[in-house]
């Protein structure tokens, strides 16, 4: 599955970067969302993908069945998802405020600090 996911994540990155390079700030937000999802998947995939063996220990046991999925990247990605949401919220509200002040959605028109 990993080669397939590698190609898929590469595509996600490509779309994210393409959107982030656009001049319209709304597209920048979309790019940001794509990027954070792609990054989460990247971390998740590089640790290896395991089918049907969640890192849970059955009741009454001390060890999980052998070959469970690696729990560490899952923990890392879990917080990353929530934080990405917080950052996204911050970004969109910031952009909304910037738009109200500058009255332009073109990043090239926002390049000076005094506008």
């Amino acid at each position, binding site marked *: 599955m990993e080669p397939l996911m590698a190609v898929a994540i590469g595509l996600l990155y490509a779309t994210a970067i393409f959107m982030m390079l656009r001049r319209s700030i709304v597209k920048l937000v979309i790019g940001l969302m794509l990027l954070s999802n792609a990054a989460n998947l990247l971390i998740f995939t590089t640790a290896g993908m395991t089918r049907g063996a*969640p890192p*849970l220990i059955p*009741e009454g046991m001390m060890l999980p069945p052998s070959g469970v999925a690696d729990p560490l990247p899952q923990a890392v990605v*879990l*917080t990353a998802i*929530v934080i990405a*949401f*917080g950052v996204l*919220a911050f970004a969109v*509200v910031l952009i909304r405020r910037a738009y109200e002040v500058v009255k332009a959605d073109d990043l090239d028109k926002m390049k000076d600090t005094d506008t």
Partner: protein
Amino acid sequence: MVKSGTIILNTAARFLMPLQLMFSIFLLLRGHDEPGGGFIAGLVAAGAFTLYLFAFGVSATKEVLRMVDPRDLIGVGLLLGMISVVPAWFMGQPFLTAQWWTIPVIDFKASTPLIFDVGVYFAVLGSVTGMVMTLMEVDKDEP
């Protein structure tokens, strides 16, 4: 932008919110053993409030929350997170070392990781609800 007040949404929200909140507490408490935990439970609870916000608007939701401002919940969450750091210190262990106590009668495992998880729950709940509520408040002010 967001119109509140369709009958189905109102009815659903009225019944769903208590259920969702209870479910979120269930997820929180079992999180150490089964899928769940502070982040997920906090998001579920925030989802409950968001649904209510969409159904009844900001002022009604504030009434439900009574005296509690979502921003206070953020503070409570961070405070609980910080408090869970301390007990290990009194035991002469490094900060954040987990401490476990068993409450005898109901056979409930109390621990600093649980306090910490409750902190996560409140921080996530407060942050998300606070953001959505403020956004809707501003939204209401504008045509």
